[in-house]
Structure formats: C-alpha cells, structure tokens
C-alpha cells in the first residue's frame, strides 16, 4: 500500500527519476566489482560523481585480504653541525581508547602517507617536519637534509606456537621513502 499523502502526477515522476539517478550513482560506485566493465563505467562517471559529492568506495572493510602491516612514520632533519632532530607520531600501542579516538585522523594520515600513490604529498610533509623540528639550540644553523622513513613490520601468517597478542611484533624494516638535500 501507499501512504495517504503519496505524491501524484509530476511530483511522483520527478521523485522516480531522481531516485533512479541516485540509485545508478550508488550502484556504479558502491557495488562490488564483479566484471571489469564496472570499472569502465566508474571511470566514465567519475567526474560527475566527484563533481556532485556523491562518490563512494566499494566497502572492502578488511577484505579481501586482511590488513597485515604495522607502520610508523619518522621524519629526520639533519643540520650542518651534525645535529639531528626527529618527528614521530604517537605510538598507537601506548594510547588509551580515548586517545586513539582523538588521534584517529593521525592514524589515517600515517597509514596513507608512505604509499607511492601519495607521493605528491611528501614534499609538503617534509617541509612540515623541518618547520616542526628546528635545531634544538641554534635555529640559524642550516638544514642539510630531511628524510621521511617508513618503519614497518608485515605480520607473518599464524604458526604454532602463536605469538601472544600481548607481545606485539617488533618493527623489522626501515626504508626512506622521501629525502631532500638542501644546497649550501
């Protein structure tokens, strides 16, 4: 049955068209990819969907393969006198639930910044690190180099005996993902 005040005539037709359009947009961007043609349609509709603010991803949510990398980002600033300063984000392990909530956006940022697809944001991040971590005693001493490091561990598959959850996997890899040398 329909509601007593259900619209009729033109009003109803407008709603039909509008809902159909919204559903097409939701479906093309949000439905899981079952066929490569969906990607083509997405690519084609992308400018429109971006332009009206209705884009969405495909809701993988820890699938198809579970996330399995723990990453820390470190910014290192080197100075002409050999001094070094470091920028580090909070250690997620040490945070209380309230702090994890408060710093959620930092987690998102550090989870993404090291990826190659975000390389365009590395120079600005390096600039920020240089500004935030000046020379500890003499700000006039020149910066010679800034480097952004990714420290990570890929969680290995479970093997008996299982490593207890109370004993987190330590960082085992270090890699510079961006570096800039300053001319003297």
């Amino acid at each position, binding site marked *: *049955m*329909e*509601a*007593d*005040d*259900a*619209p009729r005539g033109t009003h*109803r037709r407008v709603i*039909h068209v509008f*809902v159909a359009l*919204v*559903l097409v947009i*939701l479906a093309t961007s949000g*439905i*899981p990819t079952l066929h490569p043609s969906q990607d083509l349609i997405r690519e084609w509709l*992308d*400018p429109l969907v*971006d332009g009206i*603010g*209705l884009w969405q*991803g495909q*809701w*993988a*949510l*820890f*699938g*198809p*393969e*579970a*996330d*399995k990398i*723990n990453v820390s980002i470190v910014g290192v600033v080197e100075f002409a006198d050999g001094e070094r300063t470091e920028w580090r984000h909070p250690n*997620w392990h040490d945070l209380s*639930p309230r702090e*994890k*909530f*408060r710093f*959620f*956006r930092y*987690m*998102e*940022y*550090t*989870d993404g*910044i090291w990826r190659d*697809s*975000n*390389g*365009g*944001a590395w120079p*600005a991040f390096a600039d920020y690190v240089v*500004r935030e971590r000046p020379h500890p005693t003499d700000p006039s001493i020149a910066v010679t180099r800034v480097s952004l490091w990714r420290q990570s561990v890929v*969680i290995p*598959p*479970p093997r008996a005996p*299982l490593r*207890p*959850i*109370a004993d*987190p996997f330590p960082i085992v890899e270090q890699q510079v993902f961006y570096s800039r040398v300053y001319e003297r």
Partner: protein
Amino acid sequence: MKATEFGARVGRAWNEFLFAPFDLRLAAWLRIGFALLTLINFGVLGLDLEFWFGSTGPMPLDASREVIDSSSHTIFEILPQTATVLWICYSLAVIHTVLLLLGFFPRFQAFWVFFWLWQFQHRNMMIFDGEDQLFRLFAFFMIFLPTHRFDSVHAWWRERQNQPEPTRFGTAWAFRLFQIQTTLVYVGAAWSKLMGSEWRDGIAMWYISRLDDAWGKFPLPDFLFDSLPWIHLLTWATLVVEPLLPLGLWFPRTRWLALGAAVLFHLSLEYTMNLFLFHWLMLVGLIPFVATFGKHRERVLRGENGGGVMRAGDRT
C-alpha cells in the same frame, strides 16, 4: 503472464516500495543520531583544524591537489587560504550541524552539512576513510527526509501554539536511500571477505588482531586471539554474519533477528576496534529498518501509538 502485465506488477511494486507509509518519528531519531555523530566528528576535526586544513600543516592546499582526482574540487581552492577563513567555514559547518540536531529547517541544514562534509573531505582526502563517505551520503539523503515534524524546534513551537499534531507518516522513498546505502555497505564488506582466502581459511582475525592502530580498545581475554581455533571461529563467524545481514534486514520475518545481530555485531566491533564513529554511524543507518519492524507496525495500525493514518493491509 504477459509482458505488459508483468510490467504493471513491477511498476506497482516499485511504487509501493517508494511511496509506502513510513513513521516520521523515526526520521527525527535518524536526524538526531546523525547530527550528534556529525557534531562529534566535527568536534574532533576542530582540535586539529589548522594542522589538517591550514597552510602550515603537513597538507597545504597545493599538496592536497597532488593526491586527489583532478575532478574532485573543493571550495577551499577559491577561498583565501587563511586561518580566519578556515575557522569561519568550520564554524558554519558546526552551526548547521547544531541546527540540524535541533531540527530547525532541517532539510536546509542537511544540505549545508552535506556541503561542508564534502568540501572538507576534498580538501584533505588523506585523513578520511569509508565512514566519512557514509557521513557525506547520509547528509545528502537527509536533505530529502521530512525530519521536522517530530522532536524538533518546529514540533516544540507547534505544541506551544497548541496546534494539532501533524500526520505521523510520510512516504518511504528518502528512507529507502538510507536503507539501500546501509545494505550496500554490508554487501560490499561481505563480498570482499568472501573473495579473500584469509577469510575463507579462517585466519583473517589473526592479522587484524595484531594491527597496532585499528585493533585494541577495551580489555579482552587474550586466549581469544592466542588460540587458532578461537581465531578460526571469530573469522568464520564474521564471514557468516556479514553476508546474512543485508538479506535478513529486508525480509520482514527475519528483520528483528538481523537487527539484533547487526546491533550486537557493531557494538562488539566498537568495543574491540578503533574505527572512530563507523559502527555508531552504521547503527544510525539501521534506524530506517526499524520503521518496518513488524510489531511496531502492528501497534501503529491498531492506533496505539497515536497520530497518522495507515490503511489496513500495509505490506511495507
């Protein structure tokens, strides 16, 4: 069955789907729940506003343009890049959200909440994730939902003026958008997991429970995640529950069970994982499904909840 007859049936079913009566009190709850979460969301962003969106943080405007589709624009590209402008935009977003919470011309407020969520997300994509897409889409759907009739400034004013209570029911079509979007999240999550060998092999929870950012909120017994049988059980339980939710929510006979399972599912993940407001937002997204909750509908049909008119035989 002739093609024309079939077409007419589909048309009728589609019209019933879109224009069935829906309880507008639930629209008010949806508005209040959504606005509260959005306010918390903006509140947390406000703690680091200049850091994330200002020119002195790690993501000035030029850098943000480097890591986003060229077709994704933001109003911040044309506004002066000053802290004052940033705070004005942020304040407007918060004001619109508060007014949405109070139900003061809520459709108008919902439009501006949608607009500001969209603009801030396009300004620094790196700090936003799936739940922010859901915030933005829910705000868009809310533009079309008549949420002003109950639990709002308008309702308060109406009562003060001793005006009669408005009709309890509106048409369903805007609610349907919420329902479809919520379903889409479950379908996407279930499908991707079903495609993953680690989920099918029952070991995905091993990896997830070892993540240092997303995992670990409130205390849990260690044995759950230090034993492979328990890890298998938890992984496969997720793999069973998630695909069943979108099905169960749409069938009246299973809806109560699916709603209960979904609430339990989200609250348990909220207890264990650090996914900001995602699970609370999904709980808000379940509210439109309550509108077709059998006992509630029957009580309304019997007139026990007062207000509104529904014809007998409603099959919403």
